[in-house]
């Protein structure tokens, strides 16, 4: 099965890249944009058939490697 992992900076952490993109959007005339947060999107192909097991596996992968939980949070989708 294929899982999607989204890794983004925590709300409490300033995202200078997102800020720069927001600024660029506003100079293009999109002044309605309130904020932009940048992150990573990771596709993981798993051999697991059991979804619960796959999810707990993925959580461990996120904690160990895919995200740095000092600054980032993650979300898993199937």
């Amino acid at each position: 099965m294929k899982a999607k992992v989204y890794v983004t900076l925590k709300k409490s952490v300033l995202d200078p890249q997102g800020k720069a993109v927001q600024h660029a959007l506003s100079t293009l005339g999109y002044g309605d944009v309130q904020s932009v947060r940048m992150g990573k999107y990771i596709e993981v192909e798993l051999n697991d058939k059991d979804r619960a097991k796959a999810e707990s596996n993925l959580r461990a992968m996120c904690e160990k490697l895919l995200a740095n939980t000092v600054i980032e949070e993650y979300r898993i989708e199937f």
Partner: protein
Amino acid sequence: MKFAVVVFPGSNCDYDCYHAFKHVLGQPTDFVWHKEHDVSKYDCVVLPGGFSYGDYLRTGAIARFSPLMEAVQKHAEKGKLVIGICNGFQILLESGLLPGAMLRNTSLKFVCKYVHLNVQTTATPFTRAAKKGQILRIPVAHGEGNYFCDAQTLASLKKNDQIVVKYCDARGQVVSEANPNGSLENIAGICNAQHNVFGLMPHPERAAEKELGSTDGLVILKSILDIK
């Protein structure tokens, strides 16, 4: 003292470090490939700068799983010395040997220039040859040197005297204009609670000879040897 300069795929300051410890300081120094498993015969492990694993995922995130890093962990637990410079600092943060994490520079640009550092503490094996408040002129070269940690970690860094060097202006003032990357409270380098593991973004090995424009890096390198 015996030095080990660790080489990861993508390290590019390994030869600079080797040169500084071997030829400038005259110490026995070896390169140690990251696939090795043992650093027990060395007194000090040097994690050099560069772009280990192409900075994939996050700086230092993949290098920390190199087989040698387990040996470095044990080396540190024994109280022996570890210094991480630039990418080496990032690897120490990712491995948990030092607290906190690195973010992109607030300018979003790679900065490559001389900066001034204000020595915050001399109670470390890496700054014992310095005077408190001494100003060191040493170059930085990085895109991700924006040090970050949460408020609780920052409080414990302060309590345990772990903030070793801060960015300052030429007069030694720690001001935001002198901060090249947006790091928390101008932090340029920290050590662990035991004071035997030190990470910093500036490159002391690039400021170790008159010909290179500054010898201020020697204050840090000579501190390790405990000579003035």
